[in-house]
């Protein structure tokens, strides 16, 4: 066994535009181990959400991630609607899917460009991002913003799509078909891309299931899951589309799946645009209050299923809000995928799950001297209970006590 060196990818590294820390343990150029350290960007979104009204929470979760900035809101408003039994007008459903799919196309284009950049293929990067601009222009036309569209609200959407905008949207999308086909052919025909990506970072279906990986990462390994189809929401049950899968589970297939999904998304967008004409009416059912209860919402974000849980206590703000983004599941698969790869391959493998760290951040406190975890959730509950007991004693109040040992 040779000498182990640590190749640091992070905390700030040109590979990723977010702070994260991958420690690659290498012997020569071969990766023999991987440590993932996150938490540089922890913002306490879930706790913040408890101090916001339901309307404000949507704006908050929109800022979890700049790229999935409509996936989190869709999942969030669906959780609120589930908790409150709110009906959503059909036109709003179409608009939700429309915005969601536009986001998927631009997110996949973003990844495709970055993947090119990571491979040193900057021309692909610049070209793909140039055409991605057109999508962002549509977003600006429809919502007023290139990102952070603020379109979703419990009970519907915040803005309607104007009839006079639809021809412009159609024209722009038609113009995108050509470039997308060009990129598809470029990826599938380039021999060097084949040499770099095929058989690299393979994830077996078993590993996908073990790690609970989601989205294109899972579908590239032949695991046929997609919440848009499996638990229809928004307008996905009302339009015709296919789930794209591949079989090899390598980085190449992840690219193939994402490119295939862009074409499916274009199909969905076109159908939604057509359906908008035949479903007039309001885009918002204006729910007045959310009764006590709990609800879940999920949405197939570009990176996989995003999940929101909301518990209502009858007030105008969530009593508990839980968010799980897809990267939280996907990033951990890196531990399997990079072992045995070279450092050159490791970087593209790390990027292949289209990681998004700001939505994945969890916090852990460690004692610097010993390296041991301190202030775990149990410890925090115990501290909180101790404080409550102390307050009760001081105030002379009585109340139920949670049995921590049974948890």
């Amino acid at each position, binding site marked *: 066994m040779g000498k182990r060196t640590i*190749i640091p990818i992070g905390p700030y590294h040109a590979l990723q535009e977010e702070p994260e820390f991958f420690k690659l343990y290498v012997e020569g*150029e071969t990766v023999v181990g991987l440590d993932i350290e996150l938490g540089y960007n922890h913002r306490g979104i879930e706790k913040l959400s408890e101090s916001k009204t339901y309307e404000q929470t949507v704006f908050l979760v929109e800022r979890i991630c700049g790229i999935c900035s409509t996936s989190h809101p869709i999942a969030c408003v669906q959780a609120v609607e589930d908790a409150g039994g709110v009906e959503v007008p059909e036109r709003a459903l179409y608009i939700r899917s429309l915005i969601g799919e536009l986001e998927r196309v631009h997110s996949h284009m973003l990844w495709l460009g970055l993947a090119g950049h*990571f491979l040193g293929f900057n*021309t*692909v990067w*610049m070209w793909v991002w140039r055409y991605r601009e057109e999508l962002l222009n549509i977003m600006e036309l429809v919502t007023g913003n290139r990102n952070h569209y603020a379109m979703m609200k419990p009970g519907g959407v915040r803005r309607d799509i104007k009839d006079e905008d639809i021809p412009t949207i159609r024209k722009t999308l038609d113009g995108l078909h050509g470039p997308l086909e060009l990129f598809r052919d470029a990826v599938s025909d380039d021999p060097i*891309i084949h*040499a*770099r990506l095929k058989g690299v970072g393979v994830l077996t279906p078993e590993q996908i299931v073990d790690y609970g990986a989601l989205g294109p990462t899972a579908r590239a390994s032949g695991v046929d899951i997609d919440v848009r189809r499996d638990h229809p929401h928004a307008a996905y049950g009302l339009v015709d589309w296919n789930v794209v899968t591949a079989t090899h589970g390598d980085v190449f297939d992840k690219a193939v799946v994402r490119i295939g999904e862009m074409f499916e998304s274009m199909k969905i967008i076109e159908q939604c645009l057509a359906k908008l004409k035949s479903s007039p009416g309001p885009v918002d059912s204006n729910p007045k209050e959310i009764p006590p209860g709990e609800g879940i919402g999920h949405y197939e974000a570009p990176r996989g299923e995003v999940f929101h849980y909301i518990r209502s206590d009858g007030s105008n703000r969530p009593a508990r809000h839980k968010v799980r983004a897809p990267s939280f599941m996907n990033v951990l698969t890196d531990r399997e995928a990079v072992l045995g790869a070279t450092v050159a391959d490791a*970087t593209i493998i790390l990027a292949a799950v289209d990681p998004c760290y700001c939505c994945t951040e969890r916090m852990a406190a460690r004692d610097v001297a010993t390296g041991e975890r301190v202030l775990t959730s149990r410890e925090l509950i115990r501290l909180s209970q101790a404080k409550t007991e102390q307050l009760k004693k001081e105030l002379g109040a009585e109340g139920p006590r949670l049995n921590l040992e049974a948890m």
Partner: protein
Amino acid sequence: MNPAVIILKALIFPGLLFTAVLGLVTSWVDRFVTARVQMRVGPPFLQPFYDVAKLMIKETCVPAGGSTWLFLGAPLVGLSGVTLGALVVWSALLFGGRGFSGDVIVALYVLTLPAVGVILGSFASRNPLASLGGSREMKLLLSYELPLALAVLVPVMQSYAAVQSIRLADMATQLPVASVSGVLALVVAILCMQAKLTLVPFDAPEAETELTGGAYMEYSGPPLGLFKLTRAMMLVTMPLFLVTVFCGGLDVADGVLPALLGLLKVLGLVVVIVLIRNTAPRVRTDQAVRFFWGPVTLVALVAVGLGMMGL
């Protein structure tokens, strides 16, 4: 020759200063063509000059624990290598001189020094990413030098057969690229040049998105500026060398117009490598080594064989 004249030639014309200016202009061509291929606007003409000038007034940070003199000396190794190489090639093309016998070998030899400088500098940095870059540069150097030497052997043989000389000045009067073996050898040489300049697809030693600059990682200020300058000078010296050896040189003696046409040949080669670097992703080092020792060396051997048969 008067020593003062030699020093003037080495430092000002056509050595360091002249080649540096030409190299920075060439690197502007590189950046401009790259930008246009990528649907960008591209930098202003003087941008490469601003970049190097700015680096010259920035602070130099030396990593603790490394070898300081090696760290600071490495850029000079590269710079002196490319200056000597440029001087040898230019001397054969200008002044109506005939150079000296075997100057082609000297040019080949000193033009490996920039890569050696990068390797020395990266290992002196004591940075894991830099040493990885250095070891990649070393593997790359070992892989492309053999086919490059074989490729240059073809025009050498042709020149020797025609005028019994292996001086660059005499080789520039031949046109090896007009023969089958010459074309094959030129293709091999262009690929080797791509690797020598560590441009995509052979930019693994720097690999911005893997090693964040790799070999150059710890460099800042003037030493980094010297490395950049070396790269820029290589960007013009290597194409100039190939034009001299394969494509009949610059024809400076025949007047201004043929000389400009000669420069167009150099520019053409530069555009070719810029286009290659913009239409391919980066290959892994093992793939590059296999590529150069496998198919490229084979083609070079075929070219040498054809050259021996006089084709």
